[in-house]
C-alpha cells in the first residue's frame, strides 16, 4: 500500500487560510481503504474495495461558520475549498453561543487502535473469513439463504487548527454480520448476528454464523400476543440500543444543553434505580469507539455519566461546553472531512447488576424476552412507539414461543424508572461497550 501524505495538503490549506483574516479555522483530511465481501443468497457473491481521500475546512468569522470539502487533495481543489469556506463564513451570521475552538492538549496515546493484519488484509483472507462464517451457520442447519458480509477498513486522518491543535489518527476496524433465512412452507425462521472490533482476533466469525443460525431456527412458529402490560427483559443487544445509547445521545452536545431533548432537564436528577451506573470511556485500549483525541483534538477521558441512578453530566464538545461555561468533556464527533462536528458517546459501559438472566426469566410469570429491538424515542419528547423486532413470550418462568407484530409504547424515562433488575453478565460490543440484560417492571404492549 502506498504511503498517503495528509500533512502536506492540510498545511497548504492552513497557509492559504492564514491570508484571509479569519477568526478561527481548522482543516481535516482523511484517507481510508476498505475491503468488503458481500454475502447474498446462497453465499458470497461480490468482493469490493475502495480508497477514499478528502479534505474539509471549517472557518469562523464574526461567530459565523463556513464549511467546504472536496474528495480531491489537488492544490487547485484545496484552493477552491478554502475560498468557498471563507466566503460562506462571511455570508453566515453571528452565532451568539459560539466561543471559539479548542487549543492544543497532550494526552497519552490509547493503544491497540490499529492492527497491522487489517492494514495488510487481502480480499482472499476476507473471503476465507466470510466462508467460515457461512460454514458455521451450515453446521447448524443447511439450506438457508443469506444476507450479510465482511467489512474491514484502515483509516488515517490529520487535524490542524488555527489554535494550535495538530493531531493524527490511525485506526483499523473489522466487522462481520449474517442473516440466515430458513423457510418451512409459509413459516420463516430468520435472525441476525454480528461482531466488530479493531482486529481480526477481536471478532469471532464462527460464533456469529452458528449463533445466527441457531437464533433463526428458534424463530419458527412465531405467534401474535394480545395487547396488555407486561414486564420486558431486554437482552444486551436490545438494552444498549433501546436504553443506554438513547439516553447518552440525548445528554450530548448542543441539543442537550439548548433544552431540545428529553434529557435536557435531567442533570442531578434520579433517572433509574440506585444500582444504575453508566460510564462513558473513550480511552479503552483496542476498542472501536476509542480515540486518543476527540473530533476537535481534545483528549478523550473516562466520564461517569450516571451514578446511583443520578445523571451527573452532559457529554460536551467545545460548542456545547461553551454554552455552559465548562470545559469540553472530549466528546466531539467529526463526521469525516465533510466538516460537521457534533457530540456523542464513545464506549458506553453499564455497571453489571447482581441477577442472572435465568433468574430474571424464572421470576417472570408473564412477560416478553426481547432479543432484538430499538425502542427509539422521539428525542425531543422522549415518547416512543416501536416494534419488538424479535422476542419470546415468557410464561410461568419459561421461555415459550417467538412473538410477532408486537409493539411497545411509553416514555423512555418510564423505562429507566421501571428498571427492576440488571444482570451480572452482559455482552461487550466493539471491544468497549458493555451492556447487561435489563428487566423492566411493566411496559404497555400493542398486539392482537
Amino acid at each position: 500500500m502506498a504511503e498517503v501524505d495528509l500533512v502536506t495538503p492540510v498545511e497548504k490549506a492552513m497557509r492559504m487560510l492564514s491570508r484571509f483574516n479569519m477568526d478561527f479555522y481548522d482543516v481535516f483530511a482523511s484517507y481510508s481503504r476498505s475491503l468488503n465481501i458481500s454475502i447474498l443468497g446462497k453465499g458470497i457473491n461480490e468482493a469490493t474495495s475502495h480508497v477514499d481521500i478528502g479534505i474539509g475546512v471549517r472557518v469562523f468569522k464574526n461567530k459565523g461558520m463556513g464549511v467546504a470539502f472536496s474528495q480531491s487533495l489537488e492544490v487547485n481543489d484545496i484552493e477552491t475549498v478554502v475560498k468557498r469556506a471563507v466566503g460562506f463564513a462571511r455570508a453566515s451570521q453571528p452565532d451568539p453561543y459560539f466561543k471559539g475552538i479548542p487549543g492544543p492538549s497532550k494526552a497519552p496515546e490509547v493503544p491497540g487502535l490499529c492492527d497491522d493484519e487489517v492494514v495488510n488484509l487481502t480480499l482472499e483472507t476476507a473471503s476465507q473469513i466470510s466462508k467460515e462464517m457461512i460454514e458455521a451457520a451450515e453446521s447448524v442447519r443447511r439450506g438457508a439463504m443469506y444476507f450479510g458480509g465482511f467489512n474491514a477498513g484502515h483509516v488515517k486522518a490529520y487535524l490542524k487548527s488555527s489554535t494550535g491543535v495538530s493531531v493524527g489518527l490511525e485506526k483499523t476496524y473489522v466487522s462481520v454480520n449474517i442473516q440466515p433465512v430458513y423457510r418451512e412452507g409459509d413459516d420463516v425462521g430468520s435472525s441476525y448476528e454480528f461482531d466488530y472490533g479493531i482486529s481480526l482476533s477481536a471478532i469471532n466469525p464462527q460464533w456469529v454464523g452458528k449463533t445466527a443460525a441457531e437464533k433463526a431456527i428458534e424463530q419458527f412458529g412465531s405467534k401474535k400476543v394480545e395487547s396488555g402490560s407486561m414486564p420486558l427483559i431486554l437482552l444486551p443487544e436490545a438494552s444498549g440500543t433501546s436504553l443506554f445509547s438513547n439516553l447518552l445521545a440525548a445528554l450530548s452536545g448542543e441539543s442537550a444543553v439548548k433544552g431540545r431533548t428529553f434529557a435536557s432537564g435531567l442533570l442531578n436528577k434520579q433517572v433509574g434505580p440506585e444500582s444504575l451506573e453508566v460510564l462513558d470511556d473513550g480511552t479503552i485500549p483496542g476498542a472501536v469507539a476509542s480515540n486518543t483525541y476527540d473530533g476537535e483534538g481534545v483528549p478523550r477521558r473516562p466520564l461517569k455519566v450516571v451514578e446511583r441512578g443520578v445523571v451527573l453530566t452532559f457529554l460536551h464538545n467545545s460548542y456545547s461546553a461553551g454554552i455552559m461555561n465548562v470545559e469540553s468533556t472530549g466528546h466531539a464527533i467529526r463526521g469525516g472531512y465533510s466538516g460537521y462536528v457534533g457530540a456523542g458517546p464513545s464506549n458506553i459501559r453499564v455497571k453489571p447488576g447482581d441477577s442472572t438472566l435465568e433468574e430474571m426469566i424464572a421470576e417472570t410469570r408473564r412477560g416478553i424476552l426481547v432479543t432484538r429491538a430499538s425502542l427509539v424515542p422521539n428525542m425531543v419528547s422522549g415518547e416512543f412507539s416501536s416494534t419488538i423486532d424479535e422476542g419470546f413470550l415468557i410464561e410461568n418462568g419459561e421461555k415459550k414461543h417467538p412473538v410477532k407484530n408486537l409493539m411497545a409504547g411509553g416514555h423512555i424515562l418510564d423505562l429507566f424508572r421501571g428498571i427492576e433488575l440488571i444482570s451480572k453478565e452482559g455482552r461487550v460490543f466493539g471491544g468497549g461497550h458493555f451492556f447487561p440484560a435489563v428487566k423492566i417492571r411493566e411496559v404497555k404492549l400493542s398486539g392482537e
Partner: protein
Amino acid sequence: MKDLLGKIVQKGLSEGTSFCEARYFEERVNSISVENGIARVLSSGILRGIGIRVIVGGHWGFASTNIPSRESIEKALEDAIGGAKSITSFAREEARIVEVKPSIDTVVHDVKINPEDVSPEEKVKRMLELERDARTFSDRVKDTFISYRDIVTRVIVCNSFGTLVEEVTPRTSIYCRVIAKEGENMQEGFEGLGNVIGYELVEGINVEDFSLKAARKAVSLLSAHPPPRGTYPVVVDPRVGGLFIHEAIGHNSEGDLVFSGQSIISDKMHQKIASQLVTIIDDPTRRNYGHFIYDHEGVKAKPHVIMKDGVLVGFLHSLESAAKLGCEPEGSARAQSHHYPPIVRMSNTFLAAGDMTLEEILEDIDLGIYLSGSQYGYVESQKGQFTCKVEEAWLIEKGDLTEHLRDVAISGLTLEALKNITAVGRDLKMEMPGTCGKSGQGMYVDAGSPHFRIDSIVVGGRR
C-alpha cells in the same frame, strides 16, 4: 472523461472480464442551516470519483477511486479484477446478468433557476424569511430550523455492452423543523419539500403550506394525547400511505432481495396477495425526487407496475436480478456514489388512485385512527414485518376525526396488511422526498398515495 471510461472498459475486456462497467460520479452540494433567526452554517462539497465493476469467471468484483487519472482508474480496474478472482474458491452465488442493447445518450434535466447562480447572501435572505414566520407564530414556539440543500449529480455509465450514457440531475430540497414547548411538554412539527428542480422550488414556497404549517403542527401537538393501543382500522394520508407502500411492499419487490430469498413475496408472483383495490407502481419517469431517465447500469428507466388489482405482477430489477428471475431489466439499479456498486432501488413508489373521497373512506368507521405525516419506517423484508412512525393522528369516532393524538406508530405484516386495504381515495399525492437506506447506501426516493383505509393494523400506544 467518456473516452477514458471507454478505454478502461476495453482494457477490462482484454484482461479477461466477461462484463466491465466504468461509472463516473460527481456530486456538487450546497447547504444552509438556519436556527432561530441565524444562518449558522453555510457549506459546500464536491464528491467525485470512478467505480469499476467486472465479472470474471462468474464472479463480481468492484473497486473505486477518488482520483480521475488514467493511472488511478487502471489501478481500480486491477483491484476489481483481483477482487473477483479472490472469491473464486469461495463464491456460491454466481454473477449472471442479462445482456441488453446498448444505449448512447446524454440527459441534462432543465431547471428554471440554477441554484448555483443564486448568491449565498440571497439564499440566506430567503431562508430567514421562511424561518421568521414559523418563529413568530406563537410564544410556545421554542426553536425553529431550516435546512436547505441543492445538489447536482452527474453520472456517466460506460460498459462492455457499448452503453455510454450521461445524466445530469439537479435536486433542491428544503426542510423546516419547529420545536414547541409548554411546561415540560415539548413537541415537534416538520415539513419538507424536494424535487428534481432548481431554486424555483424555494421561490415558489407559500409559508402557509411550509414553515407556518410546521409551526402550527408543533404547537397543536402540545395538546394532543397519547394514542390508544391495540388493533384498529386506520385511514392514512398520502404521506403515511407513501411510507407504508415503500416499507410494506416496495422493499419486498426489489429483485436482489427476491432472488436472494430475503423477500416475503419471493414465491408469490402472479398470485393475489392484496385486495382488489391495490395497484402499486414504481415510476422513475415521474418528475418527483426519485426521478431519473437512465439507471446506474445505463438501462433506460420505465414505469414498473408491481401490483395490479391485488395481483403481484412485477419486481424491480438490476441486470443481475433480471437474469436470475428471468425478466427484462427496466432500470432500477442505482448507487449512492462511485464508492458503491449499483443495487436495486425504488424510485417514486405509489399506490394508484381509487375513486373515493376522504369522507366516504371515513364514514363507516365507528372507532379507528387517522394517521398523518410520516417520520420514518423500516421493514424486515424476509419476515414481511414493517414499522411506520407517523407525525400525528386523530381518533376516528363514527366517521369523524375527534381527539388529536401524538407519537403514533403502526406495525404490520405485509401479507396481512395488503389484504386489509378496503377503501382507496382519488387524491393521489407524492409528498415524501427523501433518502432511503439499504445495504449501507442512501438513495433519493419519493413515495405517495391517495388516502386509504386498512381495516386492521397494530397501533402502538401508551394507554
